[in-house]
């Protein structure tokens, strides 16, 4: 009788503030491992930092979910992937390249520099609002979520007054275990919304990304209106949900090790390094990046066959001790090597300069303005998102001392 190696079910259970424990053993014993998905299909998971970079930079792996063998990580995700027309993140070159290049100029260093003052203003205003209202506060809904929501609204030219709508649909679109109709319906409603917004921009142009896309791409015929709607809808969701979770989780990690929060009070210029450690440690895109091999590919002696699904796990790569010694130690003071929290290859996060800008302003500002900020509940009582592609807290109750100790 032939021994059959057990194929574990994916995804694995995880502790609240670390990747699944199972990934450590897999990384040591069998760095490319087959796992079984919800629908009975098998796929490879990639857990080593070097393999992660190699696979995501290799154009023999396709990102198109319509390609047979593409690994969908849950039924809700499959529903969205298979029934939606693909855009930016689900297209391979050269279609992808054309779309990406339409957007590259929106995220250059000079654009980010021009945005910095208004990001600072938003952060200052939200801190002032929390201080004025007094403790306690829900740091997630009162601060972490509004920041990227305001910023992406301004950038795209979306009225911030509609934030309840787009935040709700955004989080439904990224649901993991929901009924398969939930993300589809949310995405359809977001598209209707964006379609109306583009119509509005035709009548009343603004100094914003949607107007520029309309004038530079849609009207000259480089981009269809339907494609533009999908692209803008994607940017709106990608632009707020992710950064909001990072701001909240990053703050949580600092508050769980007070000394590190105090480091940022003493030296706000540490912010730049601190945010990289937050991105690495939390690696919030928790179910990885799906690809499918379009031909046989040898990765360190293991042949991945054409049609095999491959899931490159960001959290596993960012906790690979060969790239990041003591990966479980969150330490903003330590100089670490490059992480892959934003992915790698042609689909590496488009908005990362914006995410970095927002996080940098937050962590250079918040500790000094709220030096006594603290959790208002025990760490074990913090609720984490259990049903989301992008990990985060449900809410983050915080408190602070009023009067004497507070810088105003």
């Amino acid at each position: 009788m032939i021994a059959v190696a057990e194929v574990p079910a994916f995804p694995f259970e995880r502790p609240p503030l670390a990747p699944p424990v199972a990934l450590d053993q897999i990384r040591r014993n069998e760095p490319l491992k087959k796992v079984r998905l919800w629908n009975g299909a098998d796929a490879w998971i990639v857990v080593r930092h070097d393999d992660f970079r190699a696979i995501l930079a290799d154009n023999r792996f396709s990102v198109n979910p319509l390609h047979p063998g593409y690994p969908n990580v849950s039924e809700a995700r499959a529903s969205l992937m298979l029934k939606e027309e693909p855009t930016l993140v689900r297209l391979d070159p050269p279609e992808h390249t054309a779309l990406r290049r339409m957007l590259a100029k929106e995220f250059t260093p000079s654009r980010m520099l021009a945005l910095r003052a208004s990001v600072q203003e938003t952060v200052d205003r939200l801190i002032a609002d929390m201080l004025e209202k007094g403790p306690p506060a829900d740091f997630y809904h009162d601060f972490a979520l509004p920041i990227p929501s305001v910023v992406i609204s301004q950038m795209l030219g979306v009225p911030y007054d509609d934030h309840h709508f787009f935040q709700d649909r955004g989080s439904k679109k990224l649901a993991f275990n929901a009924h398969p109709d939930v993300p589809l319906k949310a995405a359809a409603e977001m598209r209707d919304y964006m379609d109306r917004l583009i119509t509005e921009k035709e009548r009343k142009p603004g100094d914003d990304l949607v107007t520029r896309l309309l004038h530079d791409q849609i009207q000259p015929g480089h981009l269809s209106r339907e494609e533009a709607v999908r692209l803008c809808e994607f940017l709106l969701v990608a632009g707020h949900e992710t950064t909001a979770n990072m701001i909240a989780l990053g703050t949580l990690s600092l508050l769980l090790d007070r000394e590190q929060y105090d480091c940022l009070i003493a030296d706000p210029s540490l912010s730049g390094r601190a945010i990289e450690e937050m991105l690495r440690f939390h690696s919030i895109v928790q179910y990885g990046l799906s690809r499918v091999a379009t031909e046989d590919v040898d990765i360190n002696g293991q042949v991945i066959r054409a049609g095999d699904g491959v899931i490159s796990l960001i959290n596993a790569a960012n906790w690979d001790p060969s790239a990041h010694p003591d990966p479980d130690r969150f330490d903003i003071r330590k100089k670490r090597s490059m992480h892959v929290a934003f992915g790698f290859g042609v689909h590496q996060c488009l908005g990362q300069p914006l995410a970095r800008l927002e996080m940098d302003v937050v962590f250079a500002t918040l500790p000094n303005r709220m030096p006594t900020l603290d959790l208002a509940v025990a760490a074990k009582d913090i609720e984490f998102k259990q049903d989301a592609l992008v990990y985060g807290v449900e809410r983050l109750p915080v408190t602070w001392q009023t009067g004497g100790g507070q810088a105003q």
Partner: protein
Amino acid sequence: MKVIADLNICIGAGQCVVNAPDFFAQDDDTGLVVAPIGDLPEARREEIEMAIYACPTRALSLSE
């Protein structure tokens, strides 16, 4: 030591600029890389190599 940039591959992810801002820039009109021209200082090799390593599409290479 010189840097060669392949503009057919560059997508303007800007990682070179993050890692070696003194040597790389992004074109404001296209977002694509503006690579340094000519010989680069040996003393700065580490950050230039880091910029090349960081490029997600491997559009940059070194010519000795």
